[in-house]
C-alpha cells in the first residue's frame, strides 16, 4: 500500500490535479478546427476534380463556412487564454518546436486561401445572395469600386485549381495539427501517440463530409458523400483500434492511460459517446439509407458532427486525467 499526502499544498489541488488546465474551449476549438480542415479538404478535392456540376454543394457552397467556423473556433481559443491582452505574442515569433505556434500560423493561411476560393465559387454556390450583395454594393458608396471586385473574382476563377491545391495542403496540415497539438505532450500519456494526427484529420474530414450531406440538394451528391463518409467512419474506427493497441502495448503509464477507457472511469464516455453515438450509429443509418430505406435526412450527418465534438471533449479530458505522477 502506498499513501501519498501533500502536506504543504500544491497549487494543483485547486484545479483538481492537472485536470483543470483546459476546459470546454479547447475541445470546441479543436472540433471547429477539424470541421474547417474537413471543409477545406472536401471542397478542394471537389474543385480539383472539376465536379461542380455533379457535386454542386461540395464544390461551390461548402467553402463559405470555412472562415466562419474557424473564426468561431479561434474565438473559443481566445476565450481559453488566461493572459488575453498578450495574444498578439503568437504572431511576433515562430517557435519551430511548438505545435501551437505552427497552428497559429496555419490558421493565418486558412483565411486568404478560403476567401479566394469563396470569390471563385460564391456566384455559382449562392446565386441569390450574390445578386443581393451585388445590387447592395452598387447602391452603396462603394459602387464605383465594384469593378475591382469583378477583377478579383475573375482572377480567383482563373487560378481556382491552383488555389484549391494549396487549400487542400493547408486543410490537411490543419487537420493533422489539431491532433499533433495534443500528441506532442509527452507528460500526458493518453495523448502521447502520433496517431492522433491522422485520427483528428480523418474525423475532421468525416465532419466536413457530413456538412456536404446536410447542404446537398442533389440526390446523387448526397449518396456519394454518404458513401464517402461511411469509408471515413470505417477508417476512424480502425485508427481508434490502433490507438488503443499502441497505448496498451507501451509503458506502464501508457497502459494506465489506456485503462481509462478500457474499464476505467472514461469507459462509458469513450464507447458510448465516441464509438456508438458518433461512429456506429451514423454508419448504421448511412448503410440503411444507401439501401434505400427512408431515414430522416439530418440524422446521420448531425450524429457524425456530434461524434466529432464528443471525440475532442473525451480526448482533451482523458489526456488531462492521465499523468506520470500518481499525485
Amino acid at each position, binding site marked *: 500500500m502506498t499513501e501519498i499526502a501533500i*502536506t504543504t499544498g500544491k497549487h494543483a489541488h485547486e484545479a483538481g490535479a492537472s485536470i483543470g488546465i483546459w476546459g470546454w474551449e479547447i475541445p470546441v476549438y479543436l472540433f471547429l478546427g477539424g470541421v474547417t480542415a474537413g471543409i477545406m479538404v472536401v471542397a478542394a478535392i471537389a474543385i480539383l476534380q472539376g465536379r461542380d456540376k455533379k457535386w454542386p454543394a461540395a464544390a461551390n457552397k461548402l467553402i463559405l463556412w470555412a472562415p466562419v467556423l474557424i473564426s468561431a473556433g479561434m474565438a473559443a481559443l481566445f476565450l481559453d*487564454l*488566461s*493572459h488575453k491582452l498578450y*495574444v498578439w505574442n503568437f504572431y511576433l515569433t515562430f517557435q519551430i*518546436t511548438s*505545435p*501551437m505556434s505552427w497552428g497559429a500560423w496555419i490558421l493565418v493561411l486558412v483565411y486568404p486561401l478560403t476567401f479566394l476560393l469563396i470569390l471563385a465559387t460564391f456566384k455559382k454556390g449562392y446565386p441569390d445572395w450574390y445578386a443581393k450583395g451585388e445590387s447592395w454594393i452598387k447602391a452603396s458608396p462603394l459602387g464605383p469600386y465594384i469593378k475591382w471586385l469583378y477583377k478579383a473574382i475573375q482572377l480567383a476563377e482563373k487560378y481556382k485549381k491552383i488555389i484549391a491545391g494549396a487549400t487542400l495542403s493547408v486543410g490537411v496540415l490543419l487537420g493533422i495539427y489539431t491532433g499533433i497539438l495534443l500528441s506532442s505532450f509527452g507528460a500526458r500519456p493518453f495523448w502521447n501517440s502520433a496517431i492522433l494526427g491522422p485520427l483528428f484529420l480523418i474525423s475532421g474530414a468525416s465532419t466536413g463530409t457530413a456538412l456536404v450531406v446536410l447542404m446537398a440538394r442533389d440526390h446523387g451528391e448526397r449518396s456519394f458523400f454518404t458513401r464517402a463518409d461511411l469509408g471515413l467512419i470505417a477508417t476512424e474506427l480502425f485508427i481508434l483500434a490502433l490507438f488503443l493497441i499502441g497505448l496498451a502495448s507501451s509503458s506502464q503509464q501508457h497502459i494506465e492511460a489506456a485503462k481509462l477507457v478500457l474499464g476505467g472511469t472514461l469507459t462509458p464516455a469513450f464507447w458510448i459517446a465516441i464509438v456508438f453515438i458518433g461512429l456506429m450509429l451514423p454508419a448504421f443509418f448511412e448503410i440503411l439509407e444507401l439501401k434505400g430505406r427512408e431515414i430522416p435526412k439530418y440524422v446521420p450527418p448531425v450524429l457524425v458532427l456530434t461524434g466529432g465534438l464528443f471525440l475532442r471533449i473525451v480526448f482533451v479530458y482523458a489526456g488531462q486525467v492521465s499523468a*506520470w505522477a500518481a499525485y
Partner: protein
Amino acid sequence: MKKAKRYGMVIDMKLCVGCGACVVACKTENEVPEGLHRDWVVEEVQGVYPTLSMNIRSERCNHCSNAPCVTSCPTGASHTKEGSNIVLVTPRKCTGCRACMASCPYDARFVMPEGYVSKCTFCDHRLDQGMDPACASVCPTRAIRFGNLNEPMSEVSRLLKSRSHEALIPEAGTDPNIFYLS
C-alpha cells in the same frame, strides 16, 4: 567558451523532516499569491502498519535539461536563462495558453491571478547576488543543497557521487535536475 552551468538541487530525504520552511520561505521571497505554490512537500508512506516506511520530499520545478515546457511554448515566453538550465517565464510574452502546464510531468506550473504562468525560478535573482535559493537557505536540517552539477567538485556533484539517489519520473524523458538522496 565558458561551460554552461547546470544548476541542480540535491535533497536528502534522510534529513528532511517535512517542516515546510522551504515552502514558506519561497512564498515570502517570491511573493507567491495565496493558494499558489512554487514548491511543496510530499509525504509518501509505504506498507501496512506496523511495517511502514516513509519518504518526505520537498518538490518543485526540476529545471529539466530537456524541458518540454520550453519547447511547447508558442511565443518563447517560457525559456531557459542564458548560460544555464534555469527555466523562466517572461510575463509580457505569455498568452496564458497553458501549453507549458500540459507539457510538465511534474505539474510544477500555475496561472497567476494576473493571467500569466509562473513557477520556481531557482531564485535566480538571489543567485545573481551569490546567494542560494530561499528554500535551500532556510532549510533547518540543511537537507536541501544547491549548486552547479557541471562543476565536479561542487557540493551537489560530490553528494551525487557518494550517495545513492533518485530523480522523479526520469522516464518522462525531461532530464530533471533535482535529486533525492535515499
